[in-house]
């Protein structure tokens, strides 16, 4: 089973990298960019009986290591 974890900074937490990208897009002439937030994606190949078990396992991983709850939110997607 494959789990894809998307980690982003919580809203309200300043994201200087996102801001730098936003400015660079503006400098390249892209119009209408209101906001840019940068995050990270972690792909995990894992053995689990079913998607529910897999999701619970990955959620535990996020709480313990993958994300820092002080500044980050995460979402989990499970696929076969």
């Amino acid at each position, binding site marked *: 089973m494959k789990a894809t974890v998307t980690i982003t900074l919580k809203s309200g937490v*300043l994201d*200087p990298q996102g801001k730098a990208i936003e400015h660079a897009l503006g400098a390249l002439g892209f119009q209408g960019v209101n906001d840019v937030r940068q995050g990270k994606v972690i792909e995990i190949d894992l053995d689990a009986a079913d998607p529910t078990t897999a999701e619970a396992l990955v959620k535990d991983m996020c709480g313990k290591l993958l994300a820092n709850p002080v500044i980050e939110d995460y979402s989990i997607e499970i696929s076969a």
Partner: protein
Amino acid sequence: MRAAVIVFPGTNREKDIAEALERASGKKAQFVWHGDSDLPDVDLIVVPGGFSYGDYLRCGAMAGNSPVMRAVKQKADAGVRVLGVCNGFQILTETGLLPGVLMRNAQLKFICKKATLTVQNSDSDFSSAYSEGQRVVFPVAHNEGNYFADDATLDRLEGEDRVVFRYADADGTVNKAGNINGSQRNIAGILNEKRNVLGMMPHPENATDPAQGGTDGLGLFKSLAEVLQ
């Protein structure tokens, strides 16, 4: 003073810390490798700076979950003094010994320079040799030193006098101009609730000998040596 200095793969300031401890106390510190889950019987543990585990995932995230840090947490809970400098501060927040997190510097640049700080609080085992409001100059060298915590946590830190160092301008005034990395409320170093754990981004160990360009950092190690004899 019996001190242990924790060494992770990628730590690079452990010798600077050990030399500073010896300058202040006359005693040699022991080095402890990260894979060890048993710590020697010491009264001070230092988590030094560097790039533990290559700063992968988040600074301090891997080290914060290592066996040795579980042992450090137990010692800290039992009252042993713990000092985390730079990457050590990042590790202590990831371990949960200190609140908040160190984010990427607001200007997105690695900062390597001498920083002016004010000693906000001399009522701690780490800062008793300083006077309150004293201006000190410590080197900084970090890419993720931008202290962040929610407002409730910041209010609590200030209300309980747990902010020990703040970034200041050259005159020692705490203001926006002196805030080198965008830290909330200019915070450079904080204590835990029990006041036996200090985390700070600047490097006091690199200001303990005239050959390093200054000795302002010696006071921190002398404070500890005085308390711990």
